[in-house]
Every structure is written in C-alpha cells, then in structure tokens.
C-alpha cells in the first residue's frame, strides 16, 4: 500500500488545506473602482474638483478594505502558495489553494493557475517549472491535482518544495449595487473621520457597511 500521509483514510480525497503558507504577489494598487462621479455625488461635492486626487486615494483604500473583508477580489489578485513535503506523498498529489469566495465551478474563470514550480535536488537548489501537462486545476475542490505525482528530483530537504502561483479573477459580485453602496458608506466615513481618535463616542448607523456586506462574506477567509 502506498504511503497515504495527508490523506483521509479509506477516502479518495484527503484532509483539505494542505498548504504551508501563502502570500499576495500582485494586486491592483492604482486602478479605480468607484467612479469620481459616484464619489462626488455621495459627498455632495459635485463640481468641486479640487480634492479629486485625495478622493481617488481614499477610494483605493475603501476598495482594498472591501476586497479583504469579503475575501473577494474586485480586480485580479495573484497569490503564491507553498506546500510542504507531507503533501507530496498522497496519491494523487492534491494541492489545496487557500480558500477563495469565488471558485466558478462551471467555466473555471474564477481561479487561473499561472504556474506550478518545485525545488529540485541540485546543489544549490533550483526552482523548476512543471510543465502544464503535469497538473490540472479542480474548480470544485479549489485544488491543483498532480495525477502523475511529483517529479522524482523534488528536494525533500526544502521545507516547502512545491510552489503554486495563481490569480483570482474579479468576482461578479463586485458589480452589485449593494456592495457599491457599502463602499460609498465606508468612503463617507473615512472622508469625515480622518483621525484615529475623536472627542465624542462614535456610533454606527443601522444598516451600515456590515449589514450591506454580511450576506456576501464567506465563513472561511
């Protein structure tokens, strides 16, 4: 019997989330989402354009906050995930991507695998790209499957010898008016409150940002 480390006993799948760590490697830091027209309407500035540059900066912070809060990209976000050697003994090798709220099981437009790389056993170790014919993305399980197993020259001394880079594409929910309204509320809050402290106690209004975004927030980040 082959080694089933990392695999659920008697099952053809294994315990999920076998990545060691992951990091963001690319994100839109300058692209606007809410338009200046929407913002100046919300803030009652209309034709007063003297603060547009400041407002655009505020808008970026608001958009990134909503992306982080919902775990849902409004513009493409790229990640790099690392996998330890315990992942490579299961058969087939399945590499879970960190949970995303938008998997798009039907046409796999949600997640795009950019590359799968591994550290080989050369000295010094070299990061080697795996041919795309050696892996496939499973949108229903949000994982990458290596049906042929890992290359024989993978370096088992490296802590996380397999590295996957992938991009999560914009979620169609970002066009929902309710999410844009939450963004406008948050932007108004940040516009009116520019210091960390206040003299008086702030109170949330009912049906605010949390109420608008709550239905779209997945339980797992």
């Amino acid at each position, binding site marked *: 019997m082959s080694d089933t480390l990392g695999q659920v006993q008697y099952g053809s799948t294994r315990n999920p989330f076998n990545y060691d760590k992951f990091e963001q490697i690319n994100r839109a830091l300058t692209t606007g989402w809410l338009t200046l027209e929407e913002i100046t309407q919300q803030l009652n500035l209309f034709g*007063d354009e*003297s*603060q547009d540059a400041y407002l655009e900066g505020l808008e970026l912070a608001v958009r990134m906050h909503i992306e982080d809060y919902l775990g849902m990209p409004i513009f493409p976000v790229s990640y790099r995930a690392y996998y330890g050697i315990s992942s490579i003994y299961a058969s087939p090798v399945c590499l879970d991507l960190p949970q995303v709220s938008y998997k798009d099981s039907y046409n796999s437009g949600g997640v795009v695998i950019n590359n799968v790389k591994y550290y080989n056993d050369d000295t010094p170790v070299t990061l080697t790209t795996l041919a795309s014919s050696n892996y496939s993305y499973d949108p229903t399980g949000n994982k990458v499957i290596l049906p042929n197993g890992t290359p024989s020259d993978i370096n088992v001394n490296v802590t996380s010898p397999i590295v996957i880079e992938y991009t999560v594409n914009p979620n169609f929910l970002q066009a929902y008016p309710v999410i844009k309204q939450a963004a406008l509320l948050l932007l108004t809050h940040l516009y009116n409150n520019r210091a960390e402290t206040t003299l008086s106690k702030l109170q949330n209004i009912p049906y605010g940002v949390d109420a608008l975004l709550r239905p779209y927030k997945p339980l797992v980040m």
Partner: protein
Amino acid sequence: MAIKRYENVDVNDLTFGANAYGDYTTTITKKFTTRPLVSDVKNSLAITERYRVYQDLIQFTFNYTPNLKDIVDNQNLYSITWRAKDWRITDAIESNDRMSVTLMCYRSDPTTRV
C-alpha cells in the same frame, strides 16, 4: 424646527473692474457647482423713513476642500448663486477640525417704497 437640507449652488468668481465711463463693474463667473447644507434661512425687513429694506441671510455648510480654503482666505472674491439669486459672503467660519466650512451669506433685495 428648521429643516437643514442639501441644495445645489454655484460658486462664482467675482472680477472687479471699471467700464469706459469710469463706473465700477463686477463680473460674475461660475467657478463650480457644489452641494452644501443649507440652513438658517432668514428674510428680514427694516423700514426706514421712506423705504422698506429687505435683507436675507443664510448659512451654507460645505465640505472643507482646497477650493473652500481659498474662499475662506479671499471671501471678497467669491459669490454664491442659490435659487437663481446672487449671495455675498459675510462670514466664513471653519470648523475646528477643518472638516467643514460654514459661509454666512447675505443678499439685499432692491429697496421698495414704504
């Protein structure tokens, strides 16, 4: 109870000059449209011996922007068009946290005989 409300206004530049006859002229040029909080509208009447003098006073509260800072610094160079009438700035009051500016504006109707 007064109802504060947001209303569209035009902020105008004032340019002062003199015409060919030496009369002083004021040219009003629209600078931008914006939407302040309009409050404390007061129309008052003073009766002199011969005339009734109507004077209207109003408060506009704007978000503090670079344009508004310039208006605070040079209140004589700006006027505000609200409900198709021209209002001049008497007082420009910055909030202490510089989040808003309140402009008190007045307008005089033509004098009317008593």
